[in-house]
């Protein structure tokens, strides 16, 4: 079987790492030819992803694939720029949720891929279930990503004293990762704490209010970070699965998480994790304080984390599951476009876009009215100043023409002559 995974670029990201692990496993365990294909035009030719073959779209020539897999909505259009018998999308999240309402076109683009003639590979059952509601009849197979059990399963002891070592996960420049909220929770604590932020791009983090920022780590480096921490804090608002807590579980590291989509696949409140509500700063802070005080609770959560980790698949099992799914996709008829969903998606995008534009128009009109009022005020003020100036000038002329002023000037001049003599 010949497969390719389409990536926008080779910049580090959770999604690219998952695709690369699968590509590696498909080649090693199943004898498949598995390429990574980079879709972003321009720039230098990618140096490579370790031992994996990496190609750009322009280098593919007449190369044909049994299944081509897009890994991000913006790579989906490239599925039709290469030769493929079947096309699929690795749904690691519903990516329209990454954008705020001021990015309506990105939202629309990300939503539209759900109507395309594709098979879907979801990283979590909830994604399959929601897709089934959004697009009844969509063909979707669940392939949870694996964990490198050798790297992440190393031993870790629960510290009984000292400040609580909090590890915050997320890139602060992505608001939906909830890093600001996690930092606020740590700041709300009254117990001693040491905080570390692990980010994909630490250079872009800026001032965040933690004791330490780390990033650019390889898997061993991340595993070491888990071992030296007491709790992982992940207060995301949007996730497909959120794999870092699962990695941490393998080191016995419990987590404090919000109930983001995907958390229910592994997080059990008071068993291996603490689940706090979204935007609940007092709650998150109070829980961290309790974990700092109650190390027995921390130890119990740590045990729970290890138990959960045991049942999570390793990469070999995960890729085997993907391989079976790819075989099924290759054997089945090509998927069809869901025209009705596409039309509904465009209709909603238009309606919301129209309302958004109306809001912009209203805001612009209001801003113009305010600006006009300011200009009028300034103009009135200028006229008033001119009048006052004229009055002051007239007054000055009147004073200069008065007998008293002239007498005073004459006396001053006479005084000057006397002083010079």
């Amino acid at each position, binding site marked *: 079987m010949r497969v390719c995974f389409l990536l926008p670029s080779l910049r580090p990201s959770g999604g690219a790492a998952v695709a690369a692990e699968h590509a590696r496993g498909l080649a090693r365990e199943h004898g498949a030819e598995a390429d990574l294909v980079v879709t972003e035009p321009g720039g230098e030719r990618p140096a490579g992803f370790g031992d994996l073959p990496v190609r750009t779209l322009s280098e593919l020539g007449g190369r044909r694939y049994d299944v081509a897999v897009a890994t991000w909505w913006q790579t989906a259009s490239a599925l039709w720029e290469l030769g493929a018998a079947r096309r699929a999308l690795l749904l690691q999240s519903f990516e329209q949720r990454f954008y705020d309402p001021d990015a309506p076109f990105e939202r629309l683009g990300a939503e539209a891929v759900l109507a395309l003639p594709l098979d879907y590979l979801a990283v979590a059952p909830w994604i399959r279930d929601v897709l089934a509601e959004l697009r009844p009849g969509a063909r979707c197979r669940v392939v949870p990503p694996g964990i490198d059990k050798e790297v992440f399963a190393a031993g870790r002891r629960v510290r009984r004293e000292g400040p609580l070592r909090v590890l915050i996960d997320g890139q602060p420049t992505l608001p939906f990762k909830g890093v600001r909220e996690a930092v606020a929770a740590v700041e709300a604590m009254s117990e001693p704490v040491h905080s570390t932020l692990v980010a994909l791009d630490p250079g872009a983090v800026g001032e965040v209010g933690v004791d330490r920022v780390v990033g650019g780590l390889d898997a061993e480096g991340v595993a070491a970070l888990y071992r030296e921490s007491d709790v992982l804090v992940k207060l995301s608002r949007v996730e497909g699965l959120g794999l870092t807590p699962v990695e941490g579980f393998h080191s016995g590291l419990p987590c404090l998480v919000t109930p983001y989509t995907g958390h229910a696949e592994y997080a059990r409140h008071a068993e291996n994790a603490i689940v706090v*509500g*979204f935007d609940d700063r*007092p*709650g998150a802070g*109070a829980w961290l304080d309790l974990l700092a*005080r*109650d190390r027995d609770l921390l130890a119990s959560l740590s045990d729970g984390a290890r138990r959960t980790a045991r049942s999570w698949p390793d990469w070999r099992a995960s890729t085997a599951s993907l391989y079976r799914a790819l075989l099924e996709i290759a054997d089945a008829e090509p998927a069809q476009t869901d025209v009705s969903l596409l039309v509904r998606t465009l209709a*909603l995008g238009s*309606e919301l876009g129209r309302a958004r534009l109306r809001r912009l128009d*209203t805001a612009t009109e209001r801003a113009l009215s305010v600006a006009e009022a300011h200009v009028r005020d300034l103009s009135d003020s200028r006229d008033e100043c001119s009048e006052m100036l004229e009055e002051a000038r007239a007054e000055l002329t009147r004073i200069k023409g008065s007998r008293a002023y002239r007498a005073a000037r004459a006396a001053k001049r006479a005084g000057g002559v006397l002083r010079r003599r």
Partner: protein
Amino acid sequence: MSADPADASLAGPPGDGRGPLVALGDTGAPGVPALRWLDRLPRSGDPPERVIAPAGDGAWRHAPWPAADALFELAPPSGTAVALTGGNAGLRAAVAEHAAARGVALEPIVRLDARELRRCACVILAECPGGALPARAPAVLAAGRLLIVPRLRTAFGLQDGLDHVEFADPDEAVTLVQAYCRAPAAFARMLVWGRVAAEAQRASVVYARLAADLRLHDHGRRA
């Protein structure tokens, strides 16, 4: 639970009612509740209980009300009736006035409950205490009804334009209602996402978590 029946139908716990006593809203409680879950900001004269509120200083937790499990099973609406309710009387009146001026029909509802939710397809909740999502919003989402609220600073995980819609002024609320009534099928995916978002507030999950919170925090305090 100690609650007004209307509120209980939106946010009550399932099951036999065993567990710590929770007072929902400003209702009186037989005895001292383990906590009071307000739909407004806490005030200085409030009883000295643990308080959960959508926002405000002094609250033990910040959260909207849970969404009763039964609401997730509610059948889709049969029409496009739009309900107007919420604690901000001024905003409610302004929305009603703009709707009337533009010939858009809204049904004013004094007290939202599960029965009213069953009747309508869309709910304008005209309030946002402290800039936060109204307490009853998860119930609307769980029921699979379109939620329209004022612009929020604290959305408790919700996303404007994906699982609900927010309005900047009363006129925009009416524009959104018109958009919905023009193409209700297009909003179907928003209702799906609304239910997904409401899952984080599903009553059976939230109250179970709350019971564990009370137990562990009381144990931690004693320790």
